[in-house]
């Protein structure tokens, strides 16, 4: 081993370690990557929130680019992102499907009356079973689903303007462009 290498090698290893730890500082351990990205949406059939006689299923997610948004009424961040969802529904043609997760129906309906309804349809997952199939572990979570019904992205945490403009909209636009 040459002299200079003997000193440079530990230095390089140290710098690499510092780089790794620095990278680790910037990542959020609560954001667990979903194994469902790249897979077809899980099969489900649920009643809609508004009308228990009507149902919504995974078939409704085929043929259109969709956002599947998991929410419940007492979730503070879901309320915070609600305004952004309203804006997305207005501005973009993307179909937003709600998954109302482990909620009380009157409260959920009240929230939609009060703040508006950005959803094309809302599935009512009272016991959270469908949520488990989707790997939901908190709310809000939002899945981007392509026309074939494949999950292409999972957003963990609320959607704000920055998340929409910098992350989700480019993905949605790209999926719309796909045939």
């Amino acid at each position, binding site marked *: 081993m040459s002299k200079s290498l003997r000193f440079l090698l530990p230095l390089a290893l140290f710098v690499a370690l510092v780089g790794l730890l620095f990278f680790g500082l910037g990542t959020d351990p609560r954001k667990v990557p*979903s194994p*469902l990205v790249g897979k077809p949406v899980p099969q489900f059939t649920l009643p809609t929130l508004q009308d228990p006689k009507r149902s919504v299923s995974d078939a409704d997610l085929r043929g259109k680019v969709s956002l599947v948004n998991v929410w419940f009424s007492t*979730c503070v961040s879901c309320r915070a992102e609600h305004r952004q969802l309203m804006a997305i529904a207005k501005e973009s043609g993307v179909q937003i499907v709600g998954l109302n997760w*482990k909620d009380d129906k009157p409260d959920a309906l009240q929230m939609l009356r009060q703040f508006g309804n950005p959803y094309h349809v809302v599935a009512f997952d009272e016991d959270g079973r469908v949520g488990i199939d989707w*790997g939901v*572990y*908190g709310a809000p979570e939002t899945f981007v689903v392509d026309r074939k019904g494949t999950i292409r992205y999972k957003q963990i945490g609320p959607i704000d303007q920055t998340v929409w403009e910098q992350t989700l909209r480019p993905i949605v636009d790209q999926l719309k462009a796909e045939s």
Partner: protein
Amino acid sequence: MLPAALLAGVLAWPFAATTAHAFTLEEFSFDDPAQQAEFRGLIDELRCLVCQNESLSASQAELAQDLRREVYEMMRAGKSKAEVVDFLVARYGDFVLYSPPIKPSTYVLWFGPLALGLLGAVVVLRTIRAKGKGQEADLTEAERQRLAGLLSPGREPARRPKGDRS
């Protein structure tokens, strides 16, 4: 009843409301004690996604209770441990396992410490050997002879420094 809420750790999760329920494992009983033990063992090895440093058996998060029920019902239905684990991994990823599986993306995790230890041992051995050689080379011819005399049994050293009582 209060609207459904997510978890028990108030600060652990920035975007969800909380209520304070207390869950117990009492509702999950099996007729077969062996299966009961297997259930307890399994939920000890699974991680709660909400409070990430707690196992599924310890967590008071509502999602943990839902998942315990799911595991319980699957085992009651005769599913094997591996089937239950596969079910959860397919939905939540390897993160639900406390002990990560051995596969290419975890090789560094599993074998990295061993490789580092071996590397350290090699460096130490090389350093020791290099030092040993260096000292030997420093001896003059006379010293070498005296050393040979000291080391050979049954012979007095040619010369002894004053005050050396060894």
